């Protein structure tokens, strides 16, 4: 039997396609199973389906492109339960991580915490009383936090810390100390969220003393920020413990923040507070951190019934204006100065404090035609900005299986024992070349499972953690050395 060339080609193509898809597997986890065990078994591209039930564990995902998806059946959710014993429900560091449809309750640290995971999606989760934070991506680039419901968090329910290119959309946050906090982050869109009955609804902060010093380019738009009057129950010493109850939106030192088309009502201290770092005291100074909020634009927002029962320090300020109620908008100390270049639309529509030196950035009237998807950008609004996420995913973090990657691996690992012409822990490369010639394959095989060869040298530790292809590249790199 012979195959025609065409058939062979087709077969090969099919096999190649299959090989490409074979890695995307689905792992089912049911009550009584370990989610972490499924993570261990998963390969990049795989999906882990977690069925309804109680799961008491900390799940950590140090791989790329893993999807952790809850399966909700007739109102029964998979529930990660911390019993106030476990620290975090989910920790991730891999790129391309997706977590959705989980109920997460009673952890001590976080529901979902990311450390330098890029291209993440955190959607449709139901999070109650998970300790310090609910959703906390840190050092992440390009991510989506959408349609989550969070309550009972003693710091920020959604805390975007030292991240870039993040959308926080359509979440509901209530009965937390802080609803949504954008801290030392850039390029954030906070849109369409409902923040109610927190101590403070939405925060854009620069915190001094962090390694990434800036917070700029945030749009806070179309959120409903109402009745954020819950007494502050933060841990003493934490930064949010200084937020006065009754704060709708607070910009502390963040730059280039646009606050637009929000509904901000019933917040008893103030609807919007814009302040420099001297608002919160008790933090060690950081000369590399700019304390002032620059170029804040407060465009059209619907605000009323704010300031009904202001916190002590705001009440004292307002008394200087012979008022006992708080303002819709408060610019405090450095934030009030003209050199900040901040502006407000329809200033006379609001009760304000400290806006005397702010500029005017009156918004245009928006008509139906302006709101159509294909409408051109409308000057004076941010309507044309639909996302702050990146058009392409952030750069993959891969040690490439080629000469470049081999050089890094050789220098990082092999060079600790081998040098070109001098005896170290292992024999010199010159001696290895003399033995192997140009047979890189033999070296690649040997280093996966070394055995004692030279009586005067210790046995080499196995390097089978490197793929066969990478071992070959490293062997080729080594044989190519000439100094």
């Amino acid at each position, binding site marked *: 039997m012979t195959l025609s060339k065409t058939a062979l080609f087709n077969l090969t193509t099919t096999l190649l396609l299959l090989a490409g898809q074979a890695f995307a597997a689905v792992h089912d986890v049911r009550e009584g199973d370990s989610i972490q065990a499924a993570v261990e078994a998963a390969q990049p591209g795989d999906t882990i389906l977690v069925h309804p039930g109680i799961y008491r564990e900390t799940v950590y995902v140090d791989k790329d492109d893993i999807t952790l998806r809850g399966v909700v059946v007739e109102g029964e959710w998979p529930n990660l339960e911390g019993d106030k014993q476990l*620290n975090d429900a989910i920790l991730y560091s891999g790129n391309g991580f997706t977590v959705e449809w989980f109920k997460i309750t009673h952890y001590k*640290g976080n529901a979902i915490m990311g450390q330098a995971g890029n291209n993440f999606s955190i959607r449709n989760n139901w999070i109650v009383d998970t300790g310090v934070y609910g959703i906390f991506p840190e050092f992440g680039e390009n991510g989506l936090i959408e349609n989550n419901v969070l309550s009972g968090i003693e710091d920020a329910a959604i805390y975007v810390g030292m991240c*870039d290119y993040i959308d926080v959309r359509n979440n509901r946050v209530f009965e937390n100390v802080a609803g949504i906090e954008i801290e030392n982050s850039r390029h954030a869109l906070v849109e369409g969220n409902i923040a109610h009955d927190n101590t403070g609804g939405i925060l854009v902060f620069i915190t001094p003393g962090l390694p*990434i010093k800036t917070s700029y380019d945030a749009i806070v738009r179309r959120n409903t920020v109402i009745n954020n009057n819950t007494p502050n129950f933060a841990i003493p010493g934490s*930064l949010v413990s200084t937020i006065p109850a009754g704060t709708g939106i607070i910009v502390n030192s963040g730059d280039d923040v646009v606050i637009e088309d929000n509904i901000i009502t019933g917040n008893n201290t103030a609807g919007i507070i814009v302040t420099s770092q001297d608002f919160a005291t008790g*933090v060690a100074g950081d000369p590399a951190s700019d304390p002032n909020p620059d170029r804040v634009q407060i465009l059209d927002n619907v605000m009323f019934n704010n300031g009904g029962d202001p916190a002590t320090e705001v009440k004292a300020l307002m008394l200087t204006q012979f008022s006992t109620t708080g303002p819709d908008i408060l610019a405090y100390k450095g934030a009030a100065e003209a050199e900040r270049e901040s502006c407000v639309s329809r200033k006379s529509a609001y009760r304000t404090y400290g806006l005397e030196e702010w500029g005017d950035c009156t918004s245009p009237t928006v008509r139906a035609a302006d709101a159509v998807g294909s409408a051109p950008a409308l000057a004076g609004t941010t309507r044309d900005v639909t996302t702050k996420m990146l058009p392409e995913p952030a750069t993959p973090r891969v040690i490439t299986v080629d000469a470049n990657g081999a050089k*890094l691996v050789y220098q990082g690992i092999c060079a600790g024992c081998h040098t070109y*012409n001098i005896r170290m822990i292992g024999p010199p490369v010159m001696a290895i070349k003399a033995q192997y010639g140009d047979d890189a394959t033999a070296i690649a095989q040997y280093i996966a499972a070394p055995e004692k060869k030279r009586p005067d040298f210790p046995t080499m530790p196995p390097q089978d953690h490197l793929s066969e292809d990478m071992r070959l590249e490293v062997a080729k790199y080594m044989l190519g050395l000439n*100094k």
Partner: protein
Amino acid sequence: MRILLVILLYWAQGSASADTFELSPFCPPALRLDDAGRCTLHSQYQAYGSLYDKGVGGLKTGLPPVRDGFTPQQIDLGRLLFFDPLLSRDGSVACSSCHDPALGFSDGRARSVGVQGTPVQRSAPSLWNVAFLERLLWDGSKQTLEEQLQGPLYAPNEMGGDPQTLLTTLQDNANYRHLFATAFDDQPLALNQVYTALAAFESSLISLNSRYDLYAHGVHSALTANEKEGLNVFRSFVARCAECHTPPLFTNQQIAVLGVPEAEGRPLDPGAAATTGDASQRGGFRVPSLRNIALTAPYMHAGNFASLRETAAFYTGGRGHAVPEGEELNLHWHIWDPQLSDRELDRLVDFLMTLTDQAFLPEIPLALPSGLPPARGPGVATGGSHALNIHTAPTAQQKALP
């Protein structure tokens, strides 16, 4: 035959004449010679980025900018200077007295001891990975190695020298004249060359190949179950260690006010506030890297925690529990009361032990251009690198294989 024997003995002793000392033309193994004749770092971490090049993040995060690009000769000259007590006022101590390779480039003491024989203000920080640090010393007051190292060189209670005497001493030494000329293109011997060479050597002390690093690069079998549990405690927002001891260097390089106790009877160390004049930084210190931390007990600026376990337990003692009466410190917000269990503290220590990697330990010189014995830390046997009995780097002093 007898003549040959004499020659061999003479060769083995080394150090007697200028031509005995030659500088290595090879980079230390952490670094690779580039086409311009400079030693540059290559690490798997360079395959990863980091936000704003800050070198802080998680497992697969790039390093902060590295100080490299010195020549092999400058690095090797720095190695000789580093161990040479000639650099101190009375020839009694060298850099290596307080930064001994066998002691994690520290000295095992709570507070270091200089030429005066009495303890200095603080403990000796490790020098592993100083090539990545943007601020140095416990108070973070120096930005470059060259700037920093002049402190101990000339402080009366550390090495006690003075610039003019040091320069004259080196100029009067035929070996050093020859070596400096080799390392610095026959320029006249100058103090800046001393600083450059020492900075070059210190920058070559790279430790990025621990079992933790294997895990970070994706080899999950590199850590045991207990160690992974420790990693998760470490990066959890309950213990919060990783918030300041941030991978991949395990420091965010910031000043933090922790409220660490002083040794019995010692006044509060004002830390960064003493050099910046910013009272809000009182008691603030540079967050140290935790790489090779298992090798550098005792811990903290005051050196009064004997073990990693004891140090970890400080963080669960309650916010401000060791702050003296009457002190109002601006304690860092991450200092709180995480109520870590004994098991969690044990796992944290397990994890910290995985950060040890000394594969790129430099060789201790067998002999020095001054003819003085290489200075070693307290309790470390004198002699060449074989006393270490662990990995050593090659130099031209070693006999090259045919």
